[in-house]
């Protein structure tokens, strides 16, 4: 019988042959590896655990429970679809980076201790940045460095928190951290990857600059591993619930103002992750189930949105709403799948977002958090408006200048399959309910009351959009976010290092040089010639003097030694 292995290991080893394969064989191989990983996941039973002893601690690389298993399933499933979308890409670097990124994300999900989690966490940051840099433009290079800098900062916080936690508890087991500094620093570390406000700036900065394929992968893993770790360690934390609400609204307001379609949907990651964080923060069975169901559904429709916007960028070379329009006839598959993704993310009945978003908002109501319920409802309205704007100005608004045709077949198939899954999990939510962390799930999404309520919400919001269409029209601008303050702060730090700190270093260096010169002058041979030619035979001290001093020293040393005896 074949024994299950670490899902992460399948992708790590799977990355090795990629540079040696070409053509159809490579394409077949790229799809085969996630299929093998899916079979492996299926064979992993809940309760499976595998670890090794290391420096007196137990490192657990594989710990399977219902929470890790559902995240593992969706990671591998979307990995398959994203690889299908990327089959036309010839560059090996992107595929290798994607494989290692998937591997490290699965490594985080199945880690049973803080140490192995941290190692995979950092690999995730390093491998994912290559999906941004592969775009090979100055903007991508700069955004990639900023992305890396932020993640290193988060990693440092996480490591410090882990060290304090291990010292205080004496164990590396992945359990909710002790209150105090350990808890705070670990929360900041997890929170940075989850795009907590105001630590979110790396996300709308780097994701739009990734490659067409790279951004699809980027949209899936980093923030969702963040939500997973929060569900694992901070479930039921009220601060998280309200942070989720803030993220949901903040992301939506910024998304509504964006001109770049990939930046618009990146801000919606912040917003949608807000729902997940809110669900986890509420911490009830419905809240955690809702948060995790939203992770699952969001991965599908968000990857689909990045596929669609990638398809537009790939085929038209444009990504700004002010330059787009009229693509519905030229790119029908992209248009239909993008509309499906938009309806899903908005939470329209019949699409997957409707189910999980309803669960999260329901959990806020159930746990007597009226303000949170209002925040999440308002964010729903904003999401609907934002995607009405995206679809209208990209596909339906008249634009005679634009020229494009439908994307390659593999991209179309990937988009159609992902869109079908959005509908499947929307129409038959029970399929998803079977694999949620807490079962049985007693939530019924398709009640008349709920469907009518959501219909009212969106129809009236849509009415406002079409009546005030010009107020929503895009502008060729950027909207400053917290990253403006970070850039200013880093510029100030750089100036401080370059000017005052460097001047101080130079003055200290001058002082020491002076002191050394003075000491050197004191240690100079007083008999040395002041001028003229140096004749060694005249000025050299007799060798006997040195020998005499050595004998005298030894004699005195021996005397002291004997007296002490």
């Amino acid at each position, binding site marked *: 019988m074949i024994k299950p292995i670490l899902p992460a290991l399948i992708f790590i080893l799977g990355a090795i042959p990629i540079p040696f394969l070409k053509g159809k064989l490579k394409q077949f191989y790229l799809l085969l590896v996630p299929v093998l990983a899916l079979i492996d996941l299926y064979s992993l039973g809940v309760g499976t655990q595998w670890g090794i002893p290391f420096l007196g601690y137990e490192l657990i690389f594989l710990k399977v429970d219902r929470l890790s298993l559902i995240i593992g399933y969706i990671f591998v499933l979307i990995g398959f679809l994203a690889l299908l979308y990327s089959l036309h890409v010839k560059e090996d670097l992107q595929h290798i980076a994607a494989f290692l990124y998937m591997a490290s994300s699965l490594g985080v999900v199945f880690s049973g201790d803080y140490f192995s989690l941290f190692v995979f966490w950092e690999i995730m940051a390093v491998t994912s940045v290559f999906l941004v840099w592969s775009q090979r433009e100055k903007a991508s290079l700069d955004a990639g460095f900023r992305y890396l800098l932020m993640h290193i900062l988060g990693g440092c916080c996480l490591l410090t928190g882990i060290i304090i936690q291990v010292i205080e508890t004496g164990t590396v087991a992945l359990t909710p951290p002790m209150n105090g500094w350990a808890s705070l620093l670990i929360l900041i570390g997890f929170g940075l990857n989850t795009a907590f406000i105001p630590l979110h700036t790396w996300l709308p900065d780097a994701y739009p600059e990734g490659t067409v394929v790279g951004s699809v992968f980027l949209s899936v893993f980093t923030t969702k591993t963040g939500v997973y770790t929060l569900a694992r360690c901070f479930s039921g934390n009220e601060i998280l619930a309200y942070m989720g609400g803030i993220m949901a609204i903040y992301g939506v307001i910024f998304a509504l103002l964006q001109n770049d379609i990939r930046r618009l949907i990146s801000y919606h990651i912040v917003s949608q992750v807000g729902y997940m964080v809110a669900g986890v923060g509420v911490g009830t069975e419905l809240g955690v189930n809702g948060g995790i169901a939203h992770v699952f559904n969001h991965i599908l429709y968000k990857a689909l949105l990045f596929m669609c916007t990638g398809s537009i960028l790939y085929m038209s070379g444009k990504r700004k709403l002010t330059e787009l329009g009229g693509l519905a006839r030229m790119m029908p598959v992209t248009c239909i799948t993008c509309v499906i993704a938009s309806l899903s993310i908005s939470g329209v009945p019949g699409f997957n977002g409707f189910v999980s978003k309803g669960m999260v908002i329901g959990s806020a109501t159930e746990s007597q958090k*009226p303000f949170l319920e209002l925040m999440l409802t*308002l964010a729903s*309205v904003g999401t609907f408006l934002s995607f009405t704007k995206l679809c209208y100005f990209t596909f339906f608004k008249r634009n005679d200048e634009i020229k494009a045709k439908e994307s390659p077949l593999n991209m179309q198939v990937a988009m159609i399959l992902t869109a079908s899954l959005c509908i499947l999990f929307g129409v038959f939510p029970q399929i998803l309910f079977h694999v949620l962390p807490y079962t049985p799930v007693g939530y019924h999404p398709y009640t008349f009351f709920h469907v009518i309520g959501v219909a009212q919400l969106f129809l009236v919001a849509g009415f406002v959009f079409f009546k005030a269409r010009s107020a929503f029209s895009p502008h060729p601008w950027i909207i400053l976010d917290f990253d403006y303050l970070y850039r200013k702060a880093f510029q100030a730090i750089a100036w401080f290092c370059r000017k005052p700190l460097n001047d101080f270093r130079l003055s200290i260096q001058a002082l020491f040089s002076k002191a050394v010169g003075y000491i050197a002058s004191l240690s100079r041979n007083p008999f040395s010639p002041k001028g003229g030619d140096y004749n060694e035979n005249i000025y050299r001290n007799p060798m006997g003097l040195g020998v005499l001093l050595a004998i005298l020293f030894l004699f005195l040393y021996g005397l002291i030694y004997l007296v002490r005896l």
Partner: protein
Amino acid sequence: MNELASMERLLKKLFYLLVVLSILLGFFVKKEHSLFGWHEIPAVEAIFGGIGALLLLMAGKFLASFASKKEDFYD
């Protein structure tokens, strides 16, 4: 071209009809969970949809008034 315009008009009418219908249905639907005061208001989601859209529009305008910059601002 005329066909397209008439189709657009038809869709618009259908949309308005759906808006009115959904609001009217909101008066007859039985509430399941009335935990907070506003849950008792008939067709409250329609009010949220309208006010929410206007609020977000105003919030966006306010933010753009001081945070919007030219696209090459960071270059």
